[in-house]
């Protein structure tokens, strides 16, 4: 199993202490996959540093011996971004979990990478502040992982993604050197390398310190749950809200199957059997929030809303969100297995993509439940299947085809889960050879030896076979939106 030579192993033991270097196969197994459990690889070693200095020292040992490394936070990623490499090491950041500073005056927090997303808001709450990005896994996912994936969440329509909230990063590069990207403000000293690192999925280095902006907790929050006779009607509501100049904090949609699953799991008060349910949340100064909420209610009613439930208090609001956030896991109640997709389409094409997904599912005899961030067009189709009935390959193919359909409709392969191992081979559907080569050059600039999280994000012949041959026009190119020279 172990392909790490003895000198390197001694190097890791020396910088971390032997008790913090896992080589026992049974213990290594708990690191073999992330949230995308279909891919599993047992690493040669798992390293458990406690400090940024130890991370840098461990990376220097890797660099010296040409050993690849994969950084890992909570392992909640859904694209195989933290999948180990068999002859490499996993560097777990779970022990770097101190909140180093919360500054209520400058409204920022300085964090070690293993701090969970929710802990940031907990640390900021006494000052009336919070950290805005809120991925569904926020109770366990770490800020280091959020940085790697540029995580979003239900509220990113109004508040943006991790990249919009991170001011500075301390990063250990592939040679073990430590640099700071970004600074105390958004003023830049040259190109925004901070922004390049955000969402680079662990392929450019390891973040060991993260400075994030904190926002003031909004004065008012209003949340409603509305049922509609069709997905199209719910989609029109979203369009009208946006066209009305309202930027909701969140707009989420669930279809019949997703509602059925969520109700089976948490009984959150959603209506069984309705074709579509919308969760709309507004926040801001009380009067402003109230005025806009009245307009949203009117828009819902104008589109044939069959039930309008307004959260009367924090508890009812939490129930609505519990239903929405439980939907992924809840699908286990109605199907033995499922794949989650993460494609994005322009919001105006939501109805079209959903009907196409429905047809594609029917054609191969598989059900697809839909939960999505309707405000920004980020879909999470859940392809339901039964592995024991031999449906895995079919489901996997359908899932990949759905992601690629999103690209065809002018969207993206991934809105927030990342490319990782899962979608690396689909990247040529979205990007040309020149686009990917440029990304490769940037990767080489940060990590010339290719030691950081190899095999993720960019397609490789090893992973995907030889590069796809003949170039096929990008859909936007065919539509005349972009041109290829």
């Amino acid at each position, binding site marked *: 199993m172990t392909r790490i030579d003895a000198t390197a192993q001694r190097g890791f033991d020396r910088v971390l202490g032997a008790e913090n270097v896992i080589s026992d196969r049974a213990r290594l197994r708990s690191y073999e996959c992330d949230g995308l459990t279909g891919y599993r690889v047992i690493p040669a070693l798992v390293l458990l540093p406690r400090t940024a200095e130890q991370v840098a020292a461990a990376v220097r040992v890797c660099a010296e011996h040409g050993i690849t490394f994969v950084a890992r936070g909570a392992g909640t990623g859904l694209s195989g971004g933290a999948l180990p490499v068999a002859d490499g090491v996993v560097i777990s950041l779970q022990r770097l979990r101190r909140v180093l500073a919360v500054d209520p005056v400058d409204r920022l927090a300085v964090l070690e990478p293993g701090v969970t997303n929710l802990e940031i808001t907990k640390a900021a709450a006494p000052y009336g502040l919070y950290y805005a990005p809120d991925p569904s896994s926020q109770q366990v996912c770490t800020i280091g992982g959020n940085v790697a994936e540029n995580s979003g969440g239900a509220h990113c329509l109004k508040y943006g993604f991790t990249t919009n909230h991170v001011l500075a990063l301390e990063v250990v590069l592939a040679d073990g050197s430590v640099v700071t990207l970004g600074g105390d403000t958004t003023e830049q000293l040259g190109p925004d390398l901070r922004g390049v690192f955000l969402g680079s999925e662990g392929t450019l280095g390891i973040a060991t310190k993260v400075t994030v902006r904190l926002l003031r907790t909004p004065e008012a929050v209003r949340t409603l749950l509305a049922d509609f006779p069709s997905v199209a009607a719910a989609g029109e509501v979203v369009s009208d809200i946006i066209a009305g100049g309202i930027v909701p904090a969140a707009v989420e949609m669930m279809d019949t199957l997703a509602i059925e699953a969520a109700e089976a799991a948490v009984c959150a008060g959603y209506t069984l059997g309705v074709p579509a349910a919308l969760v709309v949340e507004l926040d801001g100064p009380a009067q402003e929030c109230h005025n806009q909420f009245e307009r949203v209610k009117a828009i819902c009613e104008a589109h044939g809303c069959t039930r309008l439930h307004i959260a009367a208090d924090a508890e009812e609001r939490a129930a609505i969100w519990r239903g929405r956030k439980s939907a992924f896991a809840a699908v286990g109640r109605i199907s033995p297995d499922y794949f989650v997709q993460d494609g994005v389409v322009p919001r*105006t094409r939501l109805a079209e993509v959903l009907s196409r997904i429905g047809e594609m599912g029917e054609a191969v005899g598989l059900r697809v439940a839909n939960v999505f961030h309707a405000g920004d*067009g980020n879909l999470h189709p859940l392809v339901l299947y039964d592995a024991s009935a031999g449906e895995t390959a079919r489901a996997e193919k359908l899932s990949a085809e759905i992601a690629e359909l999103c690209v065809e409709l*002018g969207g993206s392969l991934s809105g927030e889960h990342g490319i990782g191992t899962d979608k690396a081979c689909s990247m040529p559907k979205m990007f040309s050879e020149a686009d990917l080569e440029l990304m490769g050059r940037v990767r080489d600039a940060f990590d010339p030896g290719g030691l950081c999280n190899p095999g993720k994000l960019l397609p490789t012949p090893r992973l995907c076979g030889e590069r796809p041959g003949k170039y096929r026009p990008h859909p936007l190119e065919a539509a005349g939106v972009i041109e290829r*020279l």
Partner: protein
Amino acid sequence: MTIATVLRPTSLAEAAAALADTTGSVRIVGAGTAADWAGSPEPADVVLSTTALTGVIVHNPGDMTVAVRAGTPLRELNAMLAVHGQRVASDAARVDLGATIGGLVATADAGPSALVYGCLRDLVIGATVMLADGTVARTGGHVIKNVAGYDLAKLVHGCHGTLALIAELVLRLHPLPGATSTVRLIGSLADSAEAARAVLASPLEPVACEWSNGALLVRLAGTPGALPARLATLLGSAARRLDAAEQEAAWAAHAALVAGPGSRPHVDRAVLRVGARPSRLPAVIAELTSELGATGVTAGLATGVGTVTLPADPDVVARAHQLVYGVGGSSMLRSRPPGCVAPAWGPAPSAIEVLRAVQAELDPRGRLGAGRFHPWM
């Protein structure tokens, strides 16, 4: 010195040819509103103007996105978008001077409302860039939420004409605010910083909070209603809500300070852009004023971003950089008189080796923007 060839491509293909078919050094220029920012450009063999790479490629009002050629002035783009009740939410001071969207991105420029809407780096969702050899590459896409691949639009945000030509940009749009109002409170910078803290601790969510010309200006946006009254109450009886004309004049005066006296030959002052933690900015500015003769101050009391005008003296500017660096801030020289040899940058950032490596990968011959990051690279 030979005279540079000036090329003004009108399409992506012509721009690519302009790079692929020439050799030697290239200086990229847009409207020229920031030509004298950052390091002084070295003489170039080719001057590549983006001013004919203009126009909207596609605007999707329902999706609130627009794809535009980089030489389009943002002022013109926003006038077109306003018909649809939308805008690119950047209020950088030089937008009104005709700055192009590509130039604003290349210089990482931002205005007071970056407090809420972010900088252009937060609004760009896709880009088409061109490397020094004419290679065309795309990054991002046409949807606001997208994590596929590296976000290389960030790499050209603040590149100052190095690394790659920005040819096209895709931007996310915001609705035009229903109404904008401004409350002014006359006072010193230190007192205004205190008042700003109270505003930021309140639930009023100001979109801008700046000190300039001896007063705190707090801007609110949204549906007209009770907010300005609440703000005025919060700031006390000395605070006054400005009428529309006063509001426009106050912010125009602020923008004029940010733009500085300009680079006319008889002017011997230079504009320094400063970023420091909001709590540290007032003291930094006080020191720049008392020790180095800074005038024309604007101070973003919530963003930590300010501008000052300094004597265009190399020693003074170098000391100003050190002073800002000393509190963990960052600084860059903007407009300065022709021939001014004051250093554009302070101490190099810790990631300078990465930046050099990126340049070596993207522009191995160093064709683009030589001098802009002198003496770092």
